[in-house]
């Protein structure tokens, strides 16, 4: 009876949703998610800037989460659940790294995406935790610990990926070209119609211009949206996958 019951429980296990137990992904996306408030505002800003610059050059996403409670999960499950539901790293490269800190449980973990497992093997993660984080955390120097952790992760992960694909996504010039073509088209059509000088021609002219104008508006507004996004550091989690690589430790 007990055995049957436990089997039933186990079958129900996969149904359990993580959503209530882990923090939701931040909108807009942030690299430093200090839910446990271990860092000052300026420290958060410093780390954020550092990780953003790193993403801009390599497209690797290194994300920090601090949490007040693991909600009775072990740090491995907790950190994997966040990495999976947020989708840290680019989709094709799976180049995300998640650093999870749970100060109340005194546990930490570096979770490494599939694509970076070669560059940052488990033993290296363990080394970073043991030598580069734990000594600071023991003295409650959270910023120093995280700064050193991110520097080391960056050191090992560099060279694995470049940001070329991120740059390719910038459609700024495409919209400029489209806009010029539209202007040329409009002027061409209106010239053509003027030579014909017929009522139908003028009608067509009017509607064509209207349609083209609305199209070009759409284009420029989308382009503007992108530029605004870039100015405020807008980016998104890319949907990278994780396979449980990395290491954990305590202090």
């Amino acid at each position: 009876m007990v055995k049957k019951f436990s089997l039933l429980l186990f079958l129900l296990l996969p149904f359990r949703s993580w959503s209530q137990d882990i923090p939701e992904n931040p909108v807009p996306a942030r690299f430093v998610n200090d839910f446990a408030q271990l860092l000052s505002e300026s420290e958060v800003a410093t780390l954020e800037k550092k990780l953003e610059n790193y993403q801009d050059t390599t497209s690797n996403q290194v994300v920090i989460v601090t949490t007040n409670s693991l909600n009775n999960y072990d740090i491995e499950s907790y950190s994997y659940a966040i990495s999976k539901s947020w989708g840290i790293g680019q989709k094709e490269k799976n180049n995300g790294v998640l650093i999870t800190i749970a100060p109340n449980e005194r546990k930490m973990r570096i979770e490494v995406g599939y694509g970076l497992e070669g560059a940052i093997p488990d033993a290296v993660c363990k080394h970073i935790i043991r030598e580069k984080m734990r000594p600071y955390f023991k003295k409650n120097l959270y910023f120093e610990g995280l700064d050193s952790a991110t520097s080391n992760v960056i050191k090992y992960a560099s060279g694995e990926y470049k940001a070329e694909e991120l740059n390719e996504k910038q459609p700024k010039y495409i919209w400029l070209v489209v806009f010029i073509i539209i202007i040329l088209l409009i002027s061409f059509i209106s010239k053509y119609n003027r030579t014909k000088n017929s009522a139908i021609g003028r009608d067509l002219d009017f509607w064509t211009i209207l349609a083209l104008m609305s199209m070009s508006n759409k284009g420029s507004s989308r382009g503007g949206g992108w530029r605004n996004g870039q100015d405020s550091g807008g980016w998104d989690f890319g949907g990278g996958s994780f396979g449980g690589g990395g290491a954990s430790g305590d202090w």
Partner: protein
Amino acid sequence: MKKSYIVIGVVLVVLFAIYRIFAGSYNNMVNSEETVSQSWSQVQNVYQRRLDLIPNLVNTVKGMAASEKETFEAVINARAKATAINIDPSKLTPEQISKFQAAQGELSTALGRLMVVSEQYPQLRQSEGFLNLQAQLEGTENRISVERKNFNEAVQTYNTLIRQFPNNMLAGIYGFEKKGYFEAEQNADKAPKVQF
């Protein structure tokens, strides 16, 4: 004359609808089964990773703790047994899965004992090589639990699909069978932790 056209039309529509039901559910089952096979190969990968790690680990420990012969032998035997069990992804029956799980569980237990024994040798505990292997083993165990969970989720989706109406009737005809899960273990898969 016109009536017969309508009848033919209706019959054609009904036939097409039936065809769509059959073809659609068949394709769904194929896709779902494919996901299960993929997750299974991931499971095998991570278990293989552990098998590959063991010779190195045993050799490293042997160097500094030669007197623990029994423990080494237990690990090596369990590894041989676990290596012998290979499951064809098309035959992931509950029996096969539990056989696989039992063999790997035995290996986990033997490995756990090895790690406990190793902890008793301070020289070993501080050596760089051992620490690296320990980190790799931990990472591999974690990957195993991740891939097992993913596999269980894929199997759950598949099993649910083939048991739903009307798929349950079609699944029998097509030959789709229920697949096995990894079951939760009573500490067999967790390396025992020792507090000093």
